[in-house]
């Protein structure tokens, strides 16, 4: 099924754009659509833009328009031991979760695309399970499991993050695997390479962009998570979003805006890398 979708997508691109080609799509219609789409983008981006603006605000309250320009909230962020520790822990956790999810995601994606006789279909939907279940339920169940099975809480936190990252890793790598020609592997096997060697020398270099985008994507998913960490974080294991959440329940100074701006910059950077590598369009398909 995804194969057909891909064929059709390229067909759309190769032909003249439908918006122009369909007779009767008049000027007014296009203008109305354009206005609607612009309005939707304003809605999507306004909250993010407002955070960046207010992070440079010198006053306590989140006033708009800002009364001046200052970096005082950034200084406050880097002076606050709690926030910095949480930031570092989040980075570490996201790195571990991203690597683990990408590794398991590759095995799964390869099995789905290359070895599943009837095509990915239903099994791929099953692999997307953690995306369909509310994350709240995943993390609360892991917390309960901890009460019964003696496992360190940190392990449960990592497992929870790997779970929510997996669907994204699989999506990235499946998109990348479907783009490479299976004949290349067949050729390697015919020429006497073992399966492992064919995998290592042919498949993995070819899906390297998919790997990298999976790593970055899952890194961001883990870094932004609140639900898993809400139940499974504890002293010394507080992630940045949880630290912010706890802080916001009591007060809301622009220091939160400064932290989130740093986070947004980090994420935009990573996102642009992904877009360059595989194109987000391929990931959106799933």
């Amino acid at each position, binding site marked *: 099924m995804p194969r057909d979708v891909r064929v059709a997508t390229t067909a759309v691109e190769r032909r003249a754009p439908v918006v122009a080609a369909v007779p009767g799509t008049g000027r007014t219609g296009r203008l109305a659509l354009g206005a609607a789409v612009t309005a939707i983008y304003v809605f999507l981006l306004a909250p993010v833009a407002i955070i960046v603006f207010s992070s440079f605000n010198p006053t306590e309250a989140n006033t708009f328009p800002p009364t001046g320009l200052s970096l005082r909230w950034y200084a406050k962020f880097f002076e606050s031991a709690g926030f910095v520790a949480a930031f570092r822990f989040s980075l570490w956790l996201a790195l571990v979760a991203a690597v683990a999810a990408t590794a398991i995601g590759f095995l799964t994606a390869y*099995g789905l695309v290359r070895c599943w006789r009837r095509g990915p279909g239903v099994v791929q939907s099953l692999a997307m399970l953690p995306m369909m279940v509310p994350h709240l339920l995943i993390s609360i169940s892991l917390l309960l499991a901890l009460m019964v099975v003696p496992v360190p809480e940190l392990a449960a936190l990592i497992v929870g993050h790997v779970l929510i990252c*997996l669907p994204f890793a699989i999506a990235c790598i499946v998109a990348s695997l479907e783009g490479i020609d299976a004949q290349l592997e067949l050729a390697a096997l015919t020429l006497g390479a073992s399966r492992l060697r064919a995998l290592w020398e042919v498949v993995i270099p070819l899906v390297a962009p998919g790997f990298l985008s999976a790593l970055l994507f899952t890194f961001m998913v883990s870094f932004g998570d609140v639900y898993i960490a809400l139940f499974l974080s504890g002293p010394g294991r507080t992630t940045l979003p949880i630290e912010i959440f706890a802080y916001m329940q009591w007060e809301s100074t622009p220091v939160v805006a400064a932290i989130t701006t740093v986070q947004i910059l980090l994420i935009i950077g990573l996102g642009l890398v992904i877009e360059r590598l595989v194109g987000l369009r391929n990931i959106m*398909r799933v």
Partner: protein
Amino acid sequence: MATERREVVEAGGRSGRLWLAPIALLYLIALIAPISFFLVMSVFRYSALELWVPTVTGENFARLLGDAYHRAIIVRTLKIALLTTIGCLALGYPLAWYLARTASAWRGLLMFLVIAPLMTGVIVRTYGWIVLLGSEGTINTILRGLGLVDRPLKILHTELAVLIALVHILLPYMVFPLFAALAGQDPDLERAAHTLGAGRARTFLEVTLPLSRPGILMGSALVFTLTAGAVVTPALMGGKDVRMLGQTIYELTMSTLNWPLASAVAFVLVLCQFAILLVYFRSGRRRAA
């Protein structure tokens, strides 16, 4: 197509199940078993000393459905989930349609902008809405500056605020499946409808819209379940006034420590989700037949 598929399968060998073993094991141990155990707890008896006693009882469900406070929360959650789904559909459809059909050179960037908010995490986006909608916030400042209102409007801590933030946060989940369904359509179908004399509206209603149905259902199912399980956004945007199922579960497990009742609440949540998924798969089968 068929032969191509076989070649691909041969390239991977016949070890399909082996490759899927790690994920199957992980899901079984860390996802399916714990969630099943948690849901089974809904029929256990609550005990203040041992947290739960494994004897079968219906008292958690009786308490949940019998008392007006919890019933109101269930109704409110379903209402907000439904409205959020409709809101996401109303905004997501034009956006997905545009992205699937446009020939703009900015298409890559436009797609990135849809996904970018998704990647910033729930807290970041909720915080943005607090700054926008608060009584000292941007919207109120502008409204007062224009002289439209003399007292700040109370938007934050209302259902409307929760709704706005949830639509914003969950919009990408609606756009993905819609985009996939719309981009996968053969453009010749729309052209054929035109050649046969159908107007723009009729082509949309009778060709494009029915063909994008799987995307609509998939996106709606995703958004509905994610709304129903939301905790952080309702807590920050709705304050004490707008309680939803997610917060109730959170408090029951983290402060009240009444796991059996929390499980019963979660069970209601899962039941709603199953109902939605059932609709999704049934309509999918009807389409196939």
